[in-house]
């Protein structure tokens, strides 16, 4: 690293890093089995056959006797007061069993406790075109649809708000009567060390504006749900959801049922990407319709409705001011984000913090300031899409670093490598970084892509670009703050030798069912096919918070190891007695339990279970996981901490047609620091999938709206919402960096989201290398590239991007000294704040180098 003095690691603040709380588990055999038989091996997914053969049942494949079909009537107004709803004509139609309006479900819900702002059906206000206002259950979909068209709604139109700018300029009418003020939903102002001072003492300061357009998840499976009402007063909902636990909570709340009488079963999702992590109107509506009609009720949304559910990438306008020294090392950074939240809160408060929180975990930022504002607008609500709130600022940061390197005549690779955060260190905003493999990631892609023979050397029209990223392996805090486990696993052993594993996690295609089977199989020394996985069922499985935040492998994995080790103990005890072999010599492997010193002596796994059952009765076990406590104590410190951060670096090689501006990505080299692969094939799949999604965001995907008669989605269809086809998919070369993290199960970190992050900025940087223009926006569409090329040819600035930010009255920030400037992780305006004196009070990481100025 070159600089050892005053690093965050050895300046005294590190005391916060010590913890006695649970860390990740690295199971060891009862004997000394060193290598894993399953973990790290490319075992086939437990559900791959059924998916390939088409026998997998998705939510819309489910049917029950006497089942009715539901449809939602959605608002055709962007912002309006509901004057009246007349359902008489609809109710009179033959085959219609029930018609609901908002009055039947007046209780609000929302994914975050601070944003309980949604109604299952709008009560007196519609907030976007597509907001559900009424619902019908009928004998078939056609009848339900006809009934919806027979419902007469009278609206009184209100001013519709189409952007952050309009929202800031239009405090009235308010879209919601909560939030900061006017149409501002959330504002964040945090400062870690005096950034103005850091910028003033910098050798070079750059200010850049970027815009990241909103885009959506586009899962192939359209959301579907089926509900059944049981005569004993219980309701069951089968749904394509990533978060059965939160749907469970919301259903109980809105339907006013004790949670013990509500059962939510997550059906394997045909793609989620964050788009099925909220509680959706249709989920509550079918449950209510089932209660009202006494018959099972199913709904499957149309593709257009999936666009209206959205909860995808927030459009974010960004301003970054970054100061560096002569060598390009970051002394201070001020980031501002302007977020278009859409019509509801969703995860928005968390998203707002995420547009700032992870800017510090790749490159050391000595002092950091972060302001953000999220506004309500009359569009489908934004929420968490793969990378949740971090791809936008990551795009800006990685492009800005390239610009800084160019300004200073430095190598963008070297600039990044000099700035790398140290492993096992703290960041300015009090995030505790564990293992950190970004350096090796960069080296891999630089070498693999033959970077130095291409960068600035390819012919006009061709170029390469590099960018990096980092992501959480699960959020450190649960959505509802409590001290209970984030993930629970239960195991039932059977005398047949079969093993059933129960966990609340949901397989959304990422392979979490498989990971659960692999880990338990590995610990018990059996074959994964002998394991039956039961997941995502609030009646049957222990709580796991859900498949979001890249948390499942790490959290469920740790819980699974604990449960499997506990299940193994009574077996070892019984076998040890039976064979008179000390427990320490027993090995679980190859579907047997045997003597390490004398492998022929042993019993089958089933026999081991039988011995244990004979001696102590029914065998079962549980395991749980809760992340270590995060060191930050300031308001907002809850967003950003994670047990482990994954890292990735990517090089993109592009071909730009200078006559049209069309960009084709030819190849991506990507390295991902996974900690340890539980299954390398699944890890590669996630990396390649991220590249594919990243290409879409980089080149074409955009949630665009038009102003005709309100704010209307430009084209909610798969044909005209442009997402890459296989023809646009580039070649991908993937490298996995394995440096086990102490907190991960077997050392594993996340891979579901992180590898997406470097793709968009890598493409932007490559476009610059190819044709010498900067598109400081995503998507990098042909129109923008051509515009910049033509501007440059006319001697103007070869840049396309935002020119200004709207006026916002920022608040005085909460000031939190970074760890190396003392303090205890609290804001200095927090009465509990205790300044901790430092050996070297100015404590900059780069103090020595700067002392010459």
């Amino acid at each position, binding site marked *: 690293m070159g600089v050892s003095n005053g690093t965050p690691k050895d300046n005294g603040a590190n005391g916060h890093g010590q913890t006695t709380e649970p860390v990740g588990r690295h199971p060891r055999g009862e004997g000394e089995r060193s290598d894993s038989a399953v973990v790290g091996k490319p075992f086939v997914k437990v559900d791959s056959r059924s998916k390939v053969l088409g026998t997998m049942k998705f939510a819309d494949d489910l049917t029950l006797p006497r089942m009715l079909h539901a449809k939602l009537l*959605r*608002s*055709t*107004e*962007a912002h309006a007061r509901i004057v009246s709803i007349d359902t008489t004509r609809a109710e009179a139609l033959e085959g219609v069993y029930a018609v609901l309006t908002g009055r039947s479900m007046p209780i609000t819900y929302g994914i975050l406790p601070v944003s309980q702002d949604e109604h299952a059906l709008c009560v007196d206000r519609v907030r976007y*075109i597509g907001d559900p206002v009424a619902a019908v259950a009928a004998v078939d*979909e*056609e009848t339900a*649809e006809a009934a919806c*068209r027979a419902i007469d709604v009278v609206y009184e139109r209100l001013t519709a708000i189409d952007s952050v700018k309009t929202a800031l300029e239009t405090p009235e009418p308010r879209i919601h009567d909560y939030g900061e003020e006017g149409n501002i939903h959330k504002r964040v102002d945090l400062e870690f060390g005096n950034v103005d001072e850091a910028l003033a003492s910098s050798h070079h300061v750059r200010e850049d504006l970027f815009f990241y357009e909103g885009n959506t998840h586009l899962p192939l499976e359209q959301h579907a749900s089926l509900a059944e009402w049981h005569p004993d007063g219980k309701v069951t909902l089968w749904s394509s959801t990533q978060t059965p636990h939160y749907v469970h909570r919301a259903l109980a709340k809105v339907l006013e049922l004790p949670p013990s009488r509500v059962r939510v079963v997550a059906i394997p999702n045909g793609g989620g990407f964050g788009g099925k992590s909220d509680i959706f109107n249709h989920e509550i509506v079918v449950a209510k319709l089932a209660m009202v009609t006494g018959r099972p009720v199913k709904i*499957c949304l*149309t*593709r*257009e409705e999936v666009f209206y559910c959205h909860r995808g990438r927030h459009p974010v306008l960004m301003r970054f001011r970054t100061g560096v020294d002569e060598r390009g090392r970051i002394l201070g950074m001020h980031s501002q984000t302007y977020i278009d939240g859409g019509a509801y809160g969703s995860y928005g408060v968390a998203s707002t913090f995420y547009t700032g929180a992870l800017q510090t975990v790749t490159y050391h930022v000595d002092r950091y300031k972060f302001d953000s504002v999220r506004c309500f607008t009359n569009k489908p609500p934004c929420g968490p899409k793969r990378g949740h709130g971090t791809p936008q600022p990551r795009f800006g940061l990685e492009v800005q670093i390239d610009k800084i390197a160019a300004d200073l005549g430095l190598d963008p690779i070297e600039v990044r490598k000099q700035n790398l955060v140290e492993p096992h260190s703290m960041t300015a905003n009090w995030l505790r970084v564990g293992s950190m493999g970004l350096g090796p990631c960069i080296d891999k892609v630089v070498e693999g892509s033959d970077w130095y023979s291409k960068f600035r050397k390819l012919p006009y029209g061709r170029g390469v670009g590099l960018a990096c990223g980092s992501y959480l392996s699960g959020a450190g805090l649960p959505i509802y703050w409590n001290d209970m486990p984030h993930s629970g696993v239960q195991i039932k052993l059977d005398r047949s030798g079969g093993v059933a594993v129960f966990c609340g996690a949901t397989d959304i295609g990422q392979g979490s069912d498989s990971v659960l089977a692999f880990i338990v199989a590995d610990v018990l020394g059996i074959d994964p096919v002998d394991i039956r996985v039961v997941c995502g069922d609030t009646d049957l499985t222990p709580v796991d918070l859900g498949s979001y935040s890249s948390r499942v492998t790490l959290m469920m994995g740790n819980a699974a190891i604990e449960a499997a080790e506990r299940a193994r103990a009574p077996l070892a005890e019984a076998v040890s007695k039976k064979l008179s072999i000390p427990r320490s010599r027993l090995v679980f492997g190859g579907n047997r339990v045997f003597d390490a010193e004398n492998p022929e002596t042993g019993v089958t796994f089933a026999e081991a279970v039988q011995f244990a059952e004979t001696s102590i009765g029914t065998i079962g076990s549980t395991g749980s996981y809760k992340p270590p406590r995060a060191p930050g104590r300031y308001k907002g410190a809850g967003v950003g901490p994670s047990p482990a951060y994954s890292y990735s670096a990517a090089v993109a090689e592009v071909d730009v047609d200078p*006559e*049209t*501006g069309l960009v084709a990505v030819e190849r991506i080299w990507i390295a991902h620091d996974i900690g340890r692969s539980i299954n390398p094939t699944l890890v590669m799949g996630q990396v390649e999938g991220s590249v594919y999604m990243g290409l879409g965001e980089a080149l*074409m995907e955009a949630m665009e709206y*038009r102003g*005709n*008669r*309100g704010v*209307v*989605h*430009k*084209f*909610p*269809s798969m*044909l*005209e919402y*442009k997402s*890459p*086809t*296989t*023809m*646009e998919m580039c070649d991908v070369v993937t490298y996995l960096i394995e440096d086990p993290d102490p907190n991960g199960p077997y050392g594993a970190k996340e891979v579901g989201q992180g590898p997406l992050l470097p793709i968009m900025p890598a493409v932007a940087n490559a476009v610059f290398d190819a044709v010498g223009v900067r598109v400081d926006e995503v998507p990098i*569409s*042909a*129109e923008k590239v*051509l515009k910049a090329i033509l501007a440059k040819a006319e001697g103007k600035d070869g840049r396309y991007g935002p020119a200004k930010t709207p006026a916002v009255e920022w608040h005085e920030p909460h000031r939190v000294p970074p760890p190396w400037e003392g303090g205890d992780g609290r804001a200095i305006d927090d009465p509990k704040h205790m300044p901790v004196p430092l050996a070297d009070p100015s404590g900059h990481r780069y103090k020595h180098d700067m002392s010459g100025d």
Partner: protein
Amino acid sequence: MLRLPDFDYYAPSTAEEAVRVAADHGPDAAYVAGGTDLYPNMKRRQQTPAVVVGLSRISALREITGEASSGLRIGAGVTLTRLAEDERVRAAYPSVAYAASTISTPLLRNMGTIGGNLLLDTRCNYYDQTYEWRKSIDFCMKRDGEICWVAPSSPKCWAVNSSDEAPLMVALDAKLRFVSPEGEREIPARELYGADGINYLTKRPDELLLDVCLPPANGWRAAYVKLRRRASFDFPVLGVAARVKTAADGTVEEATVVLGAVHPSPRIIEEAGAVLVGRKLTDEAIREAGEIAQHLARPLDNTDFLPHWRKQVVATHVGRALAGLR
């Protein structure tokens, strides 16, 4: 799922019967071949025929007859997959096979026919939407509404002819044979398309397309260039069909340049063809033809991409089509 409205379906096995059924039901009837255009439109309630006359059982419509030297006759029911793969078509009319191979996706090409392609409804971002979406903007002139959102002061509809084969058929001067209760008639492709996005065909609704007659394949060459965002699935946002006849020394004797997907009909750019005649296909000549076409192209904001950009890149794409004919 989006559901189809109710309709009566007839499946005649001869063209005569099909024509009779259609005539019996007048404007309430629509023919359907592959259904890849009609059915999605029906699901979105853009078209709501009470009677649908299926053509897939009429084997006569699926024939490819004749010789390249005297002109090939392609049955209206020939699928796009077959058109793209047929050896005779590929050898003598490679641009026709190529254009077919670019249409939509492999699955849709297995269903979609050349007849349906040439008679495709015009397209517009304000029109190819569900009933509910259109309701939220109060509909538009082409269906259920009053005004044109693309050109609000315009008395006519500017929905775009987005067929990939139509500009080629115009460039090639192909002839289309129709049958109705009043007998057969031939309409040259050049006279088939109207200038209005609502009345986009000059044929009557009950006229059934039997086949397309391609001209004898000698002495000329043609090319098709398609511009779209993605290399599959997408309709063209600009199509350029070019046909030239050159003397032995390469001097152009006849040239036709047709733009597709930027107007309600495929448009022959006469001046672009004229500027090439008597010259060789030099960079200079090609550039001039391209600039003329670009100047005359009037893309509007009703497809993918910004209309300004679609106009900006016309010259480049005309150039690429012509350069392919050198």
